[in-house]
């Protein structure tokens, strides 16, 4: 009997609770979305490798063999561009047939070219001993597992990517786990020969950024690999400096699906403006990034050396900090300058021009860091040239461009006419990192009105689209 009343009483209270709940739910403000889960849980390795690590390694390759003993599938990294420095076969706009392009065979306007300069360039190769074309890309033991996975913080790669003598391989091997920010930044923050040279939006400040420097890594504790997932060691993400299409790319909308802004007018921008445009109001906020590199000034012993202004071996530089991006239409694909392409040395050659325009419905206005400079070219054949700078007889030792060109001609198998010069070039670096907090995002007046950061006419608009309307 008592049970029955208890039951009725409970039901009764339940009905009231529902009524109250509905009333509150109808009136109460919506609860804020739960914060993103902390990613710090992976700061500790899920498995302590110390007990299974041998007491001594003969060579770095021995470490790799040891890794492969338990993780044979890890050898799949050898299919990736981190190992090959070449991408999949693609059609490069303006070129016939399909080509495999990558760091291995492309020119840039920083340290110019890998081939012939492997000694220092391949310090950042995820492998051991890439010295010249004889390097065996099929030999799994040459893969450098540690550079991405070690957490001791003591692992230093030297010439040709071989760890320096002093490196404690055992300590490094014992510490392995999911790649940390520092693993990625070790190469990606220092590409081009120094801190923040290449990317405007990746430098070592991302190891421990403040919220407004990078909201994902600062506020939410993201690791690089939270976005750049690596199923089967195929690391996701697309570097526009060495690729021409956006396969394996990562988009903001992969996570921020169906996002609506508080103001509907902002949403109307989304079809023409990339997320990054507003949410990365500036780049290189904390550490400067290189904006200008003039190789033609190199070799002047009389000038004062300053790593941010002038180096005899490299020429003249300019750095920028807390810089306002430049904006271009970009549909995710680009053109690419390939070795041997003719140039007009009187004009600026874009090594990787972003494709898309106001008439391209897939294109959006993107923020770019544009790295400009002057780099060596063959004045007889009118193409950009891959001289040898490093090594015993390279330019950095001899300060003789002619001999550097001749060495480069051999290394890259490209004819040299005997005449050289310096041509203006630029490289486009779309910005996707260093996303700031929403409070710092661009607001209307940053782009519209009299003080606009957009050059509307250059983007193809008649005038400020707030007055003349956006594209249809």
């Amino acid at each position, binding site marked *: *009997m008592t049970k029955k*009343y208890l039951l009725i*009483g409970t039901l*009764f209270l339940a009905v*009231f609770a529902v*009524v*109250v709940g*509905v*009333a*509150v739910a*109808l*009136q*109460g*403000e919506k609860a804020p979305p739960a914060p993103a889960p902390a990613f710090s849980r992976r700061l500790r390795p899920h498995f302590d490798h110390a007990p299974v690590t041998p007491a001594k390694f003969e060579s770095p390759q021995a470490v790799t063999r040891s890794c492969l003993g338990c993780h044979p599938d890890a050898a799949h990294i050898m299919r990736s561009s981190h190992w090959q420095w070449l991408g999949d076969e693609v059609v490069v706009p303006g070129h016939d047939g399909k080509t495999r392009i990558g760091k291995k065979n492309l020119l840039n306007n920083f340290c110019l070219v890998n081939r012939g300069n492997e000694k220092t360039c391949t310090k950042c190769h995820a492998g051991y001993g890439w010295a010249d074309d004889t390097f065996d890309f099929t030999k799994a033991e040459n893969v450098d597992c540690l550079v991405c996975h070690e957490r001791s913080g003591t692992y230093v790669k030297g010439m040709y990517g071989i760890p320096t003598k002093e490196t404690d391989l055992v300590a490094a091997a014992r510490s392995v786990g999911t790649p940390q920010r520092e693993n990625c930044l070790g190469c990606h923050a220092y590409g081009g020969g120094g801190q923040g040279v290449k990317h405007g939006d990746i430098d070592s400040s991302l190891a421990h950024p403040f919220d407004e420097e990078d909201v994902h890594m600062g506020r939410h504790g993201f690791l690089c690999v939270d976005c750049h997932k690596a199923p089967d060691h195929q690391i996701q993400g697309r570097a526009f400096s060495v690729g021409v299409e956006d396969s394996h790319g990562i988009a903001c909308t992969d996570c921020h699906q169906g996002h609506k802004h508080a103001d509907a*007018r902002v949403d109307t921008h989304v079809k023409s403006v990339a997320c990054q445009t507003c949410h990365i109001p500036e780049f290189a906020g904390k550490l400067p990034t290189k904006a200008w590199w003039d190789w033609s000034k190199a070799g002047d012993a009389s000038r004062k050396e300053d790593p941010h202004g002038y180096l005899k071996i490299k020429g003249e530089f300019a750095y920028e900090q807390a810089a306002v991006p430049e904006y271009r239409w970009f549909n995710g694909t680009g053109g690419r300058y390939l070795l041997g392409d003719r140039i007009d040395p009187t004009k600026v050659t874009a090594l990787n021009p972003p494709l898309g325009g106001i008439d391209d419905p897939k294109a959006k206005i993107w923020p770019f860091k544009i790295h400009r400079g002057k780099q060596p070219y063959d004045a007889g054949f009118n193409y950009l040239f891959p001289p040898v700078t490093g090594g015993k007889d390279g330019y950095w030792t001899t300060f003789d461009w002619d001999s550097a060109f001749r060495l480069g001609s051999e290394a890259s198998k490209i004819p040299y006419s005997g005449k050289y010069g310096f041509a203006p070039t630029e490289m486009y670096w779309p910005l996707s990192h260093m996303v700031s907090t929403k*409070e710092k995002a661009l*607001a*209307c*007046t*940053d782009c*519209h*009105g*009299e*003080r606009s950061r957009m050059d509307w006419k250059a983007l193809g608009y008649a005038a400020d689209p*707030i007055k003349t309307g956006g594209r249809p």
Partner: protein
Amino acid sequence: MSRPLAIAVFLVLAVPAAAQQGVNPIHPVFAPLDAAGKKVRTVEEMSAEKTCGACHDAAYIAAHTDHKAPRAAATCIQCHVSGARLDIRPERLDAEGKLTRESIRIGTPRAANCAACHGLVLDVGAPVLLPASFEGAPASGRTWSLTRGEGAIVAPQRMADSFLDLEGKESLSAPWDVHAAKLVDCVACHYARNSPARTDGKQGSLRYLTADPRRQTQAEFLVRPDHRFAEQDCRACHDPMKAHAFLPYRERHMEVLSCTVCHASAPMGPAAEMVDATVVTAVGGPSVRYRNVERRAGDTINTATIRPLRPLLVERVESDGVRRVAPVNLVSRYRWVSRADGADVPFETVARAWLTGGGHAPEVVSALDADRDGRIDEAELRLDTAHKTDLIAARLRALGIEDPVVVGNLDAHPLAHGISTRDRALKNCSACHAEDSRLSDDYLVASYLPGGRPPRPPEGARVVLAGTIAPSPTGGLVLQRDREAAPGSLHVLGHSRQAWTNRIGFLAFLSVLLGVTVHGGLRYALRRKRGHVEHATGEKEYVFGRYERLWHWTMAVTGIVLIVTGLEVHGTGKWALMSLPTAVAIHNAFAVILVVNGFLALFYHLTTAAIRNFIPHPRGFVARALEHMTYQARGIFYGESHPRNAAGQKLNPLQQVTYLALLNVLFPLQIVTGALIWAVGKWPAVASAVGGLHHVAPVHNLGAWLFLTFFVLHVYLVSTGRTPTDHLKSMITGYQHVEADGTEPEGAES
């Protein structure tokens, strides 16, 4: 010394010139003319009236403008030309004496043009800070009315990025002015009324009139633009009913409140309390006292802490002609006036009377320097005695001013500019719906009275300053307001008190609480003398059917919820059980449950004849009632059995009377008044037909107290059964002990 210097350098560097107006490709090139109509080659000779008047109807504009003397004498150039200055130099003129195309930077007035007189209006790019002229000698016509009057700084910049020291700055990520941030400039709301490009705003205008052929053509408009500018209020563009879903009584709030009550509730610009131009500071400006600026001696206004301004809420006639409660700031402005011709004494003359060389004149210092430190401090710089006033008056007379007197005006500046985003809007209900709310704030009118004169309140103003202006302890004046009233004689739930009903209700509640405490205490004290064993047998009888128990407990729960939420509404802010909107929502929902439950119960009682229990049996009613009273007053203490009820009735006569009153008077009263209070939000006309909330709310309030009183009594009487928990158990199980002497069991006081 280095700090002011550094700040000065900073100011120079930090305020870049406002972006220049673009070249107007349409405006014809023209030759600047002088007053005689002759071509001129310098800007000094030029007459704007003649030059612009060559095409535009200068006479019409002069006759149709708000910007005319004596309040303001703005010229065409000041408002329509970039930088308020035509650039006439020989190299800008062609052979015919016409300005070249590049010099035609003429167009619709931009924010910077308006700002030149009205206040601090800043462009993108410049971090917000107050220019040196803000504190210095007043430039001609520059009133700073937006900033000093309203605390508004019109800038698109985020407040957190400005250079000012704002309280809680790090969290102020909203822009200074959301309209400026979204490129809505001054003329968007203050446009020429006869512009064919504009109808009278989005709302309320007739759509077909946008293409009305009878409107002026653009050409006609350009000749004769009406310079009595529109004053669009928020509702011209925004429909408040499309937002504010969170707000209970949305219609009501929108009807009686100006949007700015919530959306300009805490301006962060320096708002003045008093602009005393009868005195001159050492830097040559009038003495300005701010309401929301906390500065240490020697601080510039840029380094002083600025707090949110808490405006005065008053009744105001809005631009659409409707009276609403609106926030204003009161500024008393004092100046010297020559009584001979009634004209203001120019401030430059006043400055000459005060200053000699680089600082205050020695005679002035000796008269005002109370602490004898050789200089006039901020607190000393005031004409608060006849002696000081006479001294300056004498010095003014010496400068040729006839019969100078101090005159003060009290200006009420409605807060309408510098509206930030919705995140900065007032969302705290208890800001108004609480006893100590901003609706009845006292407001300092003047902290002292220059020349001993009170400021003259505005004449024919659209603002109603309810309350009394009384002397303040510091020797100034303060606007004192009725603690329990609200502007516009509104009845504000949670704020307005219903003095006598509230008191009567509370007294009733208190006396019953006291009564049952004494009664219960006595019963407890005398429990040994009472032999209740003889009338509480082990026998039980089924007295309450299933449905009776269901509706009783439903009523009980809804009643308790209504009382709790009602108290929450009544004393907003005192009990932080839940937010006001939640309390109102729950109260309304449970009121509906109670009414439905009541009607179902009535139906049950009518159809099952159980209603008989509630109808007193006339025969012997008085005697039985007396018997019961006697029992409660005496017998109960000695363990006597309950007196008998009338045959076949569960309720005793006292209960019957109580329930008759409860069900026939209190219930309908609460339901009707409650519905009317609810209707105030939806159909205000219905409630106002019976006197509005002023009458309805106190009645509901009294009813609520009586309910609470009944509740206390009821709960107490439950304990007077054969055993203290007997009645309670019976209402749960339905079974009740039978009286020992075989009398009919008395029903619980249900």
